Structure formats: C-alpha cells, structure tokens
C-alpha cells in the first residue's frame, strides 16, 4: 500500500501493534535530554528502582539555563545552578553522555544532535522539548514529549503512541531576494494558523524546500510546533547525505552504503494520500515579521499594523486587540517604522553557522544603530568555534554586537539574557508569547537577514532597505547549500 514518509518511519518502529484503543508501542532511536524537563524523570526512575535501558541511545546537553557570559565561573542564579548540577549528577549516576558547559559539543539540544551526526533520516527522535520537530529536517520522525514520557523512554526506550494524521505542505517556485526559510515558515503559520497543524505530522515538499540547505530545513521543521503540529518532516536527499557524511557519528564504509540505500526509500509514494494538503508559491513570500503575541500574528514587512476592528472573527479580533495593547502598537503604523531596543540573533531556529554567515555579510563594514543592543548567540559551542575560525566574531564585535557563548539565551530568558519590561526586540527565535523573552518584553519574530538589517537601521527593516543586493564579497546573501 502506498505510504507517506511519516507512515514509513512509523511502521519501521512498531514494536507492538495496539488494538481496540490501545496505542502502538514505538521504538525510539535517539533520546535527547536537557536540564529542565529531566530531573523528575530521573527521580521517578530512582523511586521505582529502575535503570536507563539504553544509555547508548541517550545524549544530554546543558542549554536552557546556561549563562552566555563567564561560563568558566560558577552559575550565579541558584535555581539554574541546581538544575544543571542535578543533570550532571543524574548523567553520572545513570551512565549518560553529557556535554557540559565548556565542551565544544555543548549547546542547544536541537543543534547538538545534527552536528554530531546523530540525527539521521528514518530515525525516531524524542526530547522533553517541543522544538524536537527540528530533527524532522533529516527525514526523522521527531517530536517533543512530557516528563512522564521522558521517564518512559529512559526506562523502556519505547513510547506508546496514538497515530498522527499527515499533512502535505508544498512550497513551489523560488524565493525572492532577501526572503529566507524563516519567512517561509512564518508565512505558512500565518496561513494555516497556530492550531492549523494540530494532530498532524507536516511534510514540507516542493521545489522551494528541495533547494534549501540543511540549516534552512531545520529552521522550517523547528517551527512546525508553532503551527500546532506535533512534528514536521522533509524527505532526505543528496543535501541531507552531504551534510551527514563525515560527521563524528555518521555511519562509515558498508554501513554508510546500506544507510544511504535505505534512506533513498524514505519518501512519500507517488500515490500516497495525505489527510490534508496546503500549497504556497515561494515567489509570493516576502520578508515576514510578527506584530502580535502568537507566531500566527505575522505579516509581510511591507504591511502595516492591522486594525482589530477590521477582523471579522470575534476570537481573533479580541486576541488582536489584546496583542496590540501588550505590544504597544497603534493600528495602521507601517511595520517598517517600528523601532526596537534589542536585536537577538540565536536560538534553535536561527543560531546556526549559515544564519551567522548571513548576518555577518550584512554587518560587514557597517555599525549598529546607536539605540539598539545586539546579541549574537551561537546555537552550540561548535558553531561558535566555526564562526571564530571564519573571523565572523570580529565582524560582529566591530559592528557593535555582543558575541556570546552558546545556549537558549534570550529565546526564553531562563538565564540572565532577558528583555526588560516594555523593551522591544527583533528576535530570530520562535515564540513571541507575552513575557517569553522577559517579563513585559515585546517580541517581533524575524529572519536573520531582517534581524541584521534592523540592527543597522534601528527599525524593522529588510536587506533591501539597506540597498544590499549581494554581499560585499559578491556571493549571494541567501546561501542554499551547506558549507
């Protein structure tokens, strides 16, 4: 029978088929762990006298709470320090590999899996974090789980799961200049809504998706959760294989050949049927920004702050009114006139080397606007080292930006990197919820290119506003192939 990509990966992991409302039991290939959602799971194991079944399929890293300055000093915030010390103790006690602060492979959990070559096509990947959907960029079935489920995977390496529905999101055509993967996903969310993907695994397809680098594919899959979906996937292809080849944990020799042969079968059969389908044309996608307090409240940068009075749907009108009040915005204001205090470049959505290279191309030879502070936070220590090897750090600091150590940082402000009440940010992260980046902080979600241009002008801007057609070195701004 014809099957979709998601169904193929699912079927390959069924340990036991459920019947009569009993869920399927699925095998988990890779379990990623971080300090915030794991302590009670380990505690539960201890209470029940259980062990971790497969420490060799488990990997932990420190990211949510870690400081991005002075990482060689003790962590100042006692609750953060306790969570991190707890993870270190648990990793030691249960024999789990942990990448701690100061290690080159410490960083955001969704960067560390791919960069080590652990995230591969056809795997099931879970983590106690909703943005686990990121790993779907490799053609893995990857989703976030709750703490009880973390404990369940630790103890059994499986999860009982009810099947998902499937949705195809096809993006045809070519992106215009200055638009990126981030703009694609923001446009998708604005189109289908923050609940549009509920109950679905999304599969991104089409020419515009195929031509994206792995970094850009990760950006798209990352935000599947903002569309309400449990997971997002992209079928693996030559781009995927090229990214993986030679990474520390990538298969080698005969294993590599066997893997690639299998991976090539991982795509939706031509006559397979999705439960839902959405089509977009990449040529219509402009640099996108959010104006409200959920990721679906977004518009092309050329637009104006919407007028809630013109919104027909009652719920959406009330939500828009409340959002504009929180955001301190007046209907009708051109989005380009909105001045920001902070530009945050980082997170598991857009803190990868390709993002940093794009930003550096805009920053090069320019200075930041006096009124903004600019934070550049790599998604992992390895990304930081790579950027430094390429000299990007000098470009950032010459521009007037702060160049930090790796972690989640201002994406959720669990560490000291927070917005002050009323402060406004252009942020390359994924959530613009009230207070997400600090109590009372106001967030506009943007692509790295928009963030960079905004840092130059001080108001929400695209690279087109700077008159940039291509980078100073002549290479195109939006790279489409992984380095």
């Amino acid at each position: 029978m014809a099957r979709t990509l998601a169904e193929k990966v699912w079927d390959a992991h069924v340990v036991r088929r459920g019947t009569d409302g009993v869920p399927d039991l699925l095998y988990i290939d890779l379990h990623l762990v971080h300090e915030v959602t794991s302590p009670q799971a380990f505690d539960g194991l201890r209470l029940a006298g259980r062990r971790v079944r497969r420490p060799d399929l488990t990997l932990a890293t420190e990211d949510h709470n870690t400081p991005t300055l002075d990482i060689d000093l003790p962590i100042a915030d006692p609750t953060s320090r306790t969570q991190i010390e707890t993870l270190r103790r648990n990793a030691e006690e249960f024999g789990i590999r942990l990448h701690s602060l100061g290690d080159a492979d410490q960083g955001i959990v969704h960067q560390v899996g791919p960069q080590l070559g652990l995230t591969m096509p056809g795997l099931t990947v879970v983590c106690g974090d909703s943005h686990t959907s990121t790993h779907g960029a490799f053609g893995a079935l990857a989703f976030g789980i709750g703490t009880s489920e973390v404990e369940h995977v630790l103890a059994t390496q499986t999860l009982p799961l009810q099947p998902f529905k499937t949705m195809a999101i096809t993006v045809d055509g070519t992106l215009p200049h200055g638009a990126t993967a981030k703009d694609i996903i923001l446009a998708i969310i604005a189109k289908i809504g923050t609940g549009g993907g509920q109950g679905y695994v999304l599969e991104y397809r089409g020419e515009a998706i195929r031509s994206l680098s792995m970094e850009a594919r990760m950006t798209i899959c990352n935000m599947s959760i903002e569309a309400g979906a449990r997971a997002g996937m992209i079928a693996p292809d030559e781009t995927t294989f090229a990214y993986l080849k030679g990474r520390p944990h990538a298969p080698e020799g005969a294993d590599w050949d066997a893997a690639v042969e299998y991976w090539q079968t991982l795509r939706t059969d031509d006559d397979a049927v999705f439960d839902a389908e959405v089509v977009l044309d990449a040529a219509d996608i402009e640099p996108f920004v959010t104006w409200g307090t959920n990721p679906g409240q977004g518009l092309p940068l050329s637009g104006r702050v919407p007028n809630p009075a013109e919104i027909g749907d009652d719920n959406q009108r009330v939500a828009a009114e409340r959002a504009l009040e929180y955001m301190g915005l007046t209907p009708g204001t051109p989005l380009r006139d909105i001045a920001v205090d902070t530009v945050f470049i980082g997170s598991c959505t857009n803190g990868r080397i390709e993002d940093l290279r794009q930003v550096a191309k805009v920053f090069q030879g320019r200075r930041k606007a006096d009124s903004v502070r600019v934070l550049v936070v790599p998604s992992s220590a390895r990304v930081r080292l790579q950027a430094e090897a390429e000299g990007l750090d000098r470009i950032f600091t010459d521009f007037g930006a702060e160049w930090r150590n790796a972690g989640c940082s201002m994406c959720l402000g669990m560490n000291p990197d927070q917005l002050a009440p009323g402060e406004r940010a252009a942020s390359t992260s994924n959530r613009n919820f009230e207070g997400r980046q600090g109590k009372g902080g106001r967030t506009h979600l943007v692509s790295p290119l928009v963030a960079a241009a905004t840092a130059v002008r001080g108001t929400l801007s695209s690279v087109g506003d700077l008159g940039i057609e291509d980078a100073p070195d002549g290479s195109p701004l939006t790279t489409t192939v992984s380095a």
Partner: protein
Amino acid sequence: MEKFTQHTGVGVPLRRSNVDTDQIIPAVYLKRVTRTGFEDGLFSAWRNDPAFVLNQAPYATGSVLVAGPDFGTGSSREHAVWALKDYGFKAVLSSRFADIFRGNSGKQGLLAAQLAQEDIELIWKILETTPGTEVTVDLVNKQVRCADVTVPLQVDDYTRWRLMEGLDDIGLTLQHEGDIAEFEEHRASWRPRTLPAKHLPKVEVKAARAAGVPVEIGRPLPQN
C-alpha cells in the same frame, strides 16, 4: 504504581468550577528538581485563607476531592497531579475534567472519576452537613458511596484496567520487554549510538565576557 480497586477516605467538597492547573499548583513550584514534596504548593493561593476547605480540621486529612466542573484546565504541567497525590488525595471526582489532566492522572495512579453534576451536588451537601464523612470510591463496581447515597462513576476501560492492575505506563510496557529485546536484535547497524562517544579533536571554548571586558585566555574551564 499501587493497585487501585477501592478507596475509602474523608471527602473534601471543593465548590469551585474551572479549577485550573495554576490554581492547583502555581508556576513558581515548577523550578524544583524533585518529584515528591509538592504538597506544600497544592492550592497555595487559597491555603492562606482560613475559610478554605482544606484549612478546616475535619477536611484536612481528606483523600477524596469532590470538585466542580472543568477541573484541571490550563497548562499541561504534571506537577498538578504530583501535588494532589503528595497531599494524600487518591481520587478526584468532577463532572468534567480537562483532557491532559485526566491523562496525566491516569499515568500517575490518581483516579479522575467522572460523576453527574447532580450527584456531585448531592455528595457536596452530605460532606458539608456532616464534615468528615467518608467517601468510598469503588472502581470494581464503578460506584461512589457516601452515607446512604450510591451513585455511578465513569472512567474509560483502559484507564480502569491499568489502575486496577496497578500498572503505570512503564510497568505496562515492561510486560512486553521480550518484544522490545527482539526488536533491538534486528536494529540496523548504521543506526546511531551515542556511546562510545565519537568526537572531533578537543578544542578550547573561550568564555565570553560582558561588552567592554577583555576576554581572558587560559582561565581553566569548570570540570564536567
């Protein structure tokens, strides 16, 4: 998980609807790293009020919470279930539960049983006229008994079976350990393992400093 067939304990009438998980346990308690000891956070905002039902002597030792409709709405935090359990509750009765709360309860061995709203009202009256009255929750016969009243309770068959067998999800899955081991035997060798760790050559990661503070090279990093 302990087996749950029948439980008898003091009933606590909580005459409120829409008790959300923030009211059951506020977010400040979520920073903890342990799984036990959440009883102090249970209904923490209301516990300062001497009139609150749990602050009245006959109810303080209660183990069956009789709540208004839409109990457990809001965030998905499992801490809400932990707090109720740690306080000593074995069952919560309501005419309607939030889905996620009900799911989390089942995972943790707390019975979330659905009763008709008029039966809840009936039990509330008994518990309020005679504080300290015990309520029997009988999962075998799907009944709740209180004084001379016997009313039916609803719970889905799968959850009921798991509670009566004392099987948490993990216990249940481990019954199929043979299937898991069998699956593992056929796992392709290219599928990744995190151990033994494979690394790129070791490199030093410099600590970033606040803007304006020079980066000092060579300071030792904390040991993992």
